[in-house]
Structure formats: C-alpha cells, structure tokens
C-alpha cells in the first residue's frame, strides 16, 4: 500500500505527541479503539476559561494512517471551541490525508476520539461543579 505525502509527513513528524495530567480540570481525555482491532487512540484537549481548546496531545497505537489521523486532529482542534471541534467530520480527515477506502476507519476513530475527549471534559465539569472528584480517564 502506498501512502499520501501528508500521511507520511504526519507519520514521520507527528505533531503534539504526549499527554496532560488527566485529572487536571481543564483537560478532557478520550481513549477510543481496542488493541484487538489494531488501533487505540488517546486524545487529550486542554480547554481555557472561554471554552476554547488551547492545546491538544495524542498517543496512538495503530497503523500509519491511524497515527497520521490523530496527529492531524491535534492540529485541527487547536483554537476551536468545543462545538467547533465536534463539527470535524471523519470525511474531512480522510479527504485531507487522502486515505484509501480500507483506511477510512482510521478517520472515524479520530472523529470518535474528539467526541470522547469533549464528552470527558464536559462530564468532568458537571461533576466538578457539584463538588465530586474527577473521573478515571482510563475508563473513558
């Protein structure tokens, strides 16, 4: 299988690799996929008081297209509000990276990772305002 130049670029120079402290109240963590399926993505977003994503970090176990999809997503969500981030569709990711049909699931997973990270952030805030401890990101 041959890869597009954009996939190769993200794979060879992945952007925003790493993570934030998961129990930080300004951080939302999404972990999607399963080792048995061959890909697991962990996406973390850091949200400021205005509800804008200031930074994003990822770690991915998966093929080159999965790594590239998650790397791209960390660039795209930066500077967006949570709702704007949720508007990113897997088809946009697949198109940007010129993913072949057999790799479309990688872009779907990346979209799911955004949704999971945003949902975690929102849950955490509802929970935090009620005065409970933060959730376990491992269960996200």
């Amino acid at each position, binding site marked *: *299988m041959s*890869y597009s130049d954009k996939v190769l670029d993200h*794979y060879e120079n*992945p952007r925003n*690799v790493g*993570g934030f402290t998961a129990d930080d109240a300004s951080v939302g963590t999404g*972990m*999607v*996929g*399963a*080792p*048995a*399926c*061959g*890909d*697991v*993505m*962990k996406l973390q977003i850091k949200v400021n008081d205005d509800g804008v994503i200031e930074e994003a970090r990822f*770690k*991915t*176990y*998966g*093929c*080159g*297209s*999965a*790594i590239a999809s998650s790397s791209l997503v960390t660039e795209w969500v930066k500077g967006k509000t949570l709702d704007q981030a949720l508007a990113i569709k897997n088809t946009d990711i697949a198109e940007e990276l010129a993913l072949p049909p*057999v790799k479309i*699931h990688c872009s*779907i*997973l990346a979209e*799911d990772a955004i949704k999971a990270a945003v949902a975690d952030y929102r849950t955490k805030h509802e929970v935090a305002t009620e005065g409970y401890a933060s959730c376990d990101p*491992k*269960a996200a």
Partner: protein
Amino acid sequence: MPKLPIYLDYSATTPVDPRVAERMIPYLTQQFGNPASRSHAFGWDAEKAVEQAREEVAGLVNCDPREIVWTSGATESDNLAIKGAAQFYKGKGKHLITVRTEHKAVLDPMRELERQGFEVTYLDPEPNGLLDLDQFAGAIRPDTILASVMHVNNEIGVIQDIDTLGELCRARGVLFHVDAAQSTGKAPIDLGRLKVDLMSFSAHKTYGPKGIGALYVRRKPRIRIEAQMHGGGHERGMRSGTLATHQIVGMGAAYRIAAEEMATENERIRMLRDKLWAGIGTLDEVHLNGDLQRRVPHNLNASFNFVEGESLMMAIKDLAVSSGSACTSASLEPSYVLKALGRSDELAHSSIRFSIGRFTTEEEVDYAVQLLHKHVGKLRELSPLWDMHCAGIDLNTVQWAAH
C-alpha cells in the same frame, strides 16, 4: 552501510539464482521447441531438457522422476492433489483432514470440496505451531480418504513431523498430501522413506522462476488423481497443457543447486537468523511466534508488543518484510495462522516475519537490528498501550470500546 532496501522476505519469493537464469535463457530463444513435438530435433531437444529437469527435481526429494508432474506452481499442485484425489476416491469416503494453519492454497480447495458435499476436519495446532500427533490420529475416521498437512509453515517456519504423520496415515489407509512449497532446500525431504503420497512443490521459493511447480504422485503404491485441467493429455493425463520448457529447466537447475548446497547454506542462514534473534530479543516485550527448535533457520516471526505491525513496517521501510497485522490486508483481520496458535489479536497485529535467504549478508542483519531498536522505541513512545504497560495496567482488564 548495506545497499537499501534490504530484502528479508524470502518466504514470499526468492530472486532467481543467476546460475538458474543462465540455464533458462537458451530455451527461450534457441531451443524453443515444444517438448510434445515428436517429429523433429527441436521437440527432441526440449523434451530432453524437460526430462533432465524432472530428474533434478526428483533428485532433491529422492523419488522416481516418473512421479513428478509439472504444474504452474504450488497452488495448482495443492488443488490438483486435494481435489483430484478427493474426486477419484470419493467412493471410499468423503472425509478429509487438514490444519487451520495451512496455506490458503490448501484451505480454499478444502472449502470448495465442502461445497461439493465432502466433510473436512480442521485441526488446531499447539501454541508452538506444531500438530499434536494424538489429536491427528484421533481425527482419522473409517471414511477419511485424505489428510493434508504442510511440511514447513509459510508464516512461522515450523516443521511438522510429516514422518510420523505419514506412518499414521499409511497404517489407516488414508492418503497423505504434503505442501512442501516452503521446505525444499530448507529441510531435507526423502520420499524414498517418507510415507507421503502426494507432495506439492514450487520453484520460486527456492531460487527458481515463478509460474512453475510440480506435484509428486506416488507410484508404489500407485496413487490416482482426477485431472483438473484437460486438453491433450500431457503429464500422463494428470495435467494437460504445453510444457513451459524454460521454466521447467529453471526449476530443475534451482533444485539441483539446492541439493548440492543446502547443507552449507542452511548453516550460514542459521547463523544469521540466530544473530537477528539475539539482536532483537534484547528489546522488551518481544515474543517469538512458533517453536524455535523445530523450525527452518530461514524464518523469524516475532511480535513487538504495543507496536502495530504495519506502522512498524512503515518505520523500517528500508527492510522488505511482511506482517500478520490486519492493516496489511483488506479484511482487517490479523493473521489467521497466529490466531490459530492462540496468540491474542494484539500480538498478531504486532507481528513481523523476517525471512532470510541465500543473498542475505551479516551486514544487512546488523543493520536490521539497529533499525528495529531505533524504531520500536520511537513507536512505543507514541503508543498509549506502552504507557499503560509501563504504568502496570493489565490491558486485559481494560474495557475497550470495540469498533
């Protein structure tokens, strides 16, 4: 620095040995006759070359040249053996036995026979890839007509005990077919001693050309098969079609070289394989797939846990290797061979097959080891699973959202 990329995929195919290519060329341009032409010197020359090649192939596996039937390759040989024997002997019974780790060229004809009303038992190998002999014996029934077990596995390189399996079959009146595509020149084959009735061969896995293979069909006791290809009655009616003289000459030349050089060559290859394993075995969480002892020296199949196989292949793109990862196939299913050994899906997804051959150098192996050390580490830094492993989390206890 070795010349890149480095070919470590000899189990997929091998280059034609230059000595083989040299012997083939005159049969394309000069001695181009049809070996079936009985009326002139062009035909006689071609026939002589075909018969010499038949002797060379028979020489490597110690059988009578008259027991060798030319085919287009091991896939055709497997089809001819399995479907041909099943159809000829169906009056005796309609049950066949094979193993889940066989090549698709055996499994798919078995599936086809099931559609035609035969019944097939698919045996699971042990976790080391080898077949349990008692389990095999227990699967034989009064209506079993044929068992098919490969000699050397294409993915993990393990060598099945075809010696004992043949005895078990012969004692119970069951025909025994062996796919030997991956074993010629790698493991000794003595058909004078083995109780094997049908054996499939390929040229291109043993430094011969693609597009040519052979099926061994035992004469004593005489084994009958129904032809799958009709049109002229070539090869004693078992496989019609004009013989590809230059390909046949190439297969003969390749098998002759294998017979002469395999002992010394395999020692050298074993040394290289051991060096490769010693080099990557020092990495954390690397698992060997398949038995290390009962295995051809050419093969090393390892799972690099927490790193996905396709992304590892992408990182080590200067090495031509293959992976059991689903991402290399359209099906999204990881290697069925590794799964049949009971390997977890994630280890199957993380597997890489290195296969070493005649032209592999020590420098290339050293380079491969160095490259793997660099990139496995890099990909693990990117892997959330590696983080969890380092944090002492058992991945089996995590609730994953399958997709």
